[in-house]
Structure formats: C-alpha cells, structure tokens
C-alpha cells in the first residue's frame, strides 16, 4: 500500500524501506534534518502533484503525519 511513498523516503533520505514506519522521523532516520526533509517534501509534492502550505510543511515531524497530510490533499493511495 505505502510502497511509492516509502520508496521516495528511502531514496531521498538514503534509508532502507524496512526501516520506515509511521513513527519514522528525525530520531530514527539519521539523514532526516531540516534541509533533507525539505528536499523530501519537494520530491513528494512533485510525485503526488500536491502543494503543501507553509504551516503544513512545518507540522511534519514523522511519516505518519506526512501520510495524514497527503490524505488531506486528497491522495488516497501512497
């Protein structure tokens, strides 16, 4: 179900897919820093043709929140 999203996270943050879950964030993913997460969002925006608002961007603390945001923007499958 979540393969496309996980693939993007995996390739952008250089982390194995098996390490990714809803709780994944700066504590569990080494490369998750303020710049790389922005690169990640840029990738996700392009992949799902969505645009996050600035405040939404700042909310994203882990993968679970990211999924909720995508749902909010009408993405049902990721």
């Amino acid at each position, binding site marked *: 179900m979540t393969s496309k999203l996980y693939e993007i996270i995996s*390739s*952008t943050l*250089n982390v194995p897919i098996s390490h990714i879950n809803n709780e994944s964030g700066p504590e569990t993913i080494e490369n998750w820093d*303020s*710049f*790389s997460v*922005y*690169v*990640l969002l*840029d*990738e996700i925006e*392009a992949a799902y043709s969505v645009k996050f608002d*600035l405040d939404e*961007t*700042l909310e994203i603390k882990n993968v679970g929140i990211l999924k909720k945001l995508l749902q909010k923007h009408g993405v049902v499958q990721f």
Partner: protein
Amino acid sequence: MKNEQKISYYINKSKSIDISKFEKKVRIALLGSFTLNGMAETLSVKCAEINVGCTTYVSAYNQYNQEILNDNSSLYTFSPDISFLFLDSRSILEKLFHFPYSVSESERRQFIKTKVEQVSELIKAFTNKSKSKLIITNLTIPTYSPYGTYETKTSFGLQEMVHEFNSQLTKIAKGIDSVYLFDFNGFVTRFGEQNVFNFKQFFFGDVKVSLDYIPYLIHELTGYVKAVLGLNKKCIVLDLDNTLWGGIVGEDGFDGIKLGSDPMGKSFMEFQKVLLALNQRGIILAINSKNNEEDALKVIKEHPDMILREEHFACLRINWNDKVQNMKEIANELNIGLDSIVFFDDDPVNREYVRTNIPQLLTVEVSTDTAQYTQTLMSMNDFHLLKITEEDTNRGKMYLQDKQRKVLEQSSTNLQEFLQQLNIKLTIKKANNFTIPRISQLTLKTNQFNLTTRRYQEEDIKKFIKEGNWVSCVQVEDKFGDNGITGVFIVKKENAQWLIDTFLLSCRIMGRGIEDSILTHILQTAKKENVKTIKGEFIPTKKNIPCASFFSDYGFRKDGKYWLFELGNPIKIPNHIKYVIEQ
C-alpha cells in the same frame, strides 16, 4: 534544453563519488549570503560526470565576509582553485530592499556607493590572500516595486539601484584578471523569478535558489570549472540532413529541403546562425554526414538560405563511410583530440554508435523537435573560455589557410621542399600583459606537443617572470597567413644550468621544424649568457607521444629523469625558418 534531475538525485549520488579515482582534481569554495545547501553536492556530481574529482568547501551560513577578511580562516586553509561568491539583492540592499523610498534619492545613491566599495574591498582582500579564481554573482533586479508602474519613472529607484550595483561590479571584475562576474540576474531572467525564487523555501530555510533550479545554476557554474581546467570543447561536428536543414537532400532534392522562410526552415536557419556566431569566436565546425557529396556540397555552396558555407567548415567528411572512422579522420586532420569534439546529429542510432565507440567525444542528445536545436546548443556549458584571445577569433581563417597549406604539401615532392616554400617566420616574444593570457591558455589546453603538460594560470605565469625566469611565446607566420601565438616556453634560470620547465606547440604547427628552431634559439641564448648545460624534461602522458623523442632527436642525452645538452656541443640551425626576436 536538457532537463535537469531533481536535487535529491545529486545529493544521493554525491555520497557515492570516490574522487581519488579521478586524474583531474579541483577544489571549489562556495561562499554566500544565503543557504547554499545542495549546491556542493550537485557540483561534485557534475564534476564527476566530466571525470573531475571535486572537493568542496562551503562557508558557514552568511559568514563570507569574515572568512574572506580573516587571513587564517578555514577558507584559505582549504586553498581553493575556484571560489564562487553568491550575493543576493535582499542581503545587499538590507532594509532598502523592502523600503527603498523611506530614504531620499541621494541617500539611495550613497547607499549603493558604499555597498560597491565594501564588495570591492572584499574582492581585493580575497585576491591578495588567495590565488583562486573568484566568480562573483551580480544581483537579481527586483521585478516588484512599491511604486508599481511609477518605478521606471523614478530617479534612482529600486531597480536602478541594483542596475548601478551590477554595473559597478562588472567594472570591478573586468579590471582584475582572476575575478569573473556570473550574470545571476541573467540566469533568473532566463528561468523566471517566480521559478528561481520560491517564497515557501525562502521562509522555510533561507533558500534563495529554489531546489529545482539549483541543478540548472550549477550546470552554468560548471562551465567555469571546464574553462579553468581546459576541458572546453573546440570543435562541433555536424550531420547535414535534418540537422543543418530539414529533409534529406538525396531524396527531397535541392529545392525540396526545408531551409528558409517556412517555420521548419527557420528553425534550421536559426540553428546555423548560432553555429556561425560560435565559429566567429573560434569554435571549429566540421561535417560528418552520410550523403552524396555532390548533392550536399551544392546545398552548402548554392542554397540561398544556407548560413554556413564551405569556408566555415574546417573539415568535410561527406561520404558513405563509417561515421566513427570519419570522426577519427576529422580529429586527425584538424589535429585535435576526440575529447575536444562535440557531435550534433539528429539520428539517435548514429549518436548511440558514436557514443559507444568514442565515449570521450561529447555526443549531444538532440531533441526530435527541431525547434529545440538552438536552445540545446545555447544551453551547453562546454565552450566557455576564461579569455577569448585574438587567436580564438581568427581560428576560422587559420583553418582555411591550413587547407591551402595541405594543397601545397600534396603538390610538393618532399617535405623539405614544402617547408622551404612555406616561408616560415617565427617571432619570439617575451611574455607581457598582452601575451600572458594566451600563454596561460596554451599551457592549459595543449596536450600533444607539450613536453611537461604543466598547467599554468595567468597568476602562475606572472610569478615565473617576477622570479627572473624566461617566459616567451612564439608567433608563427608563413606565406598563407598568420598562425598567431602558437608556441610557449618557460626556462628556469639556475646559474650555469637552465631548466626547460615548459615547452609546447599548438598541434596546428607541428612537424614543420618549428620546435627545433625554438629549441635552437633557447640554446643559443643560453650560450651567449655563458650557461653550461640545458636541462630538459619529458613527462609522458596519454597524449604527448608526438614529442616523446624530441630531446633525443635533437641530440640531448638522457641523465636520470632529465635530458641534458652541453652547450660546448654544436647547435643545429634549421635553414628554412626565419627568426625575429622581440624584446
């Protein structure tokens, strides 16, 4: 235009680069008034793509002032070859960026004057402390003004302030050899302010070049790296059918090809015009096309809408032979390396064939849409030079003269007769402000007849002279014309023994006894100054085989890694060459 990969591609890719495997290396510092994240990674990848190992240094966030002014900063410890300084309107204009009209016109003028002085001091400090090339960006001219449509009526308004800053910066860069101005405003104009500057990214992390456009920006900056390292391309080899004109001349006929006033025809004419302009500044053009030579030449010579004519092509291979073989012959005839050639062909099969067989040659990915040809050519970063010299602008004419020389050579019964008839005249010129740029350029790009292949920037040449060494260059003329400055030698004077540090000839003039004459001149001069021995070096590379036996042929004897000539021995004097020595 080539679409760039996204930034994440470069960031990931940069992690797996092993720079130790590259022969050519470069150290690049990035300094800026905003976040430069992602730029160093992109630069490393783009350098690796051209087989250059790039080590980068990124200044601490907005610390460029301190780092440049402080002698002991990590910037100078890093010791860059090339440094990019990114400036931006917001940082430079400070509060006047938003509130330009909160102060009077004279205060705005004073503000810009002060800012220009500050940047000028910074540049001077940098050039005093570092031998790195410095590439400084100009500022984006803001498109928004609180004055709205009245902005352009306003005396020394916001936009004029930035214009003034940019034009002063241009003047400064023109006045210092090692400083170059990158037209960042032009970059933003080309891609659009709304694309390059993304408010969300700016608020999020002070990102002033949006992530998607960093690769485009770095692509342009890589052009400087190529120029500094002498990796620029010298020649464009072109196909004919569907490349220089639409359709196939063998099938559609002289009148049937698309070239001229219809939309398709215009796309080819425009492409040809851009090629001609490149030719006029020194890029060699050649043809490699499967075609009936007669049909194709008729178009080139007689078609009313052809922009490029026979005289613009230094070499023509219009035949049914193998394209790779043709390409090798072209390189051979023009005496240039395959790695300094760009190939432009509409046929993907031909491209793949050439790319596979001659990977060092740059085969351009050409769009199926002919409207894109011009754009593709204009967006290439392979033709930049740090300086365009007289030799560059005259190159087209020189290759034409070369064709005439070849005709004479073929009609001569032996080499000696040919050389006698050429009436070669050498003018040996001491390095000076006029010749130093060309001397540096030749050391950077000459590969074949180059005994030591030592690469020197202009600053290095000046240092040699300052230390009392002998740096000269050689202008070569003959009955067909002036080849310009095509030889360089640097002799280090060590009392009774002189060392030939550098000795090179442009490949165009090899094999005419010129190299012997120059060496003779060095030996005679040394003898007059009571020097006992001349020491030469040959450092072999993949490309300088043509001069491997130069010293032994002349009569030097091998001594360890050096070649020696005792000045008590007779010096040979080639009799077909006249010298003029300019002091």
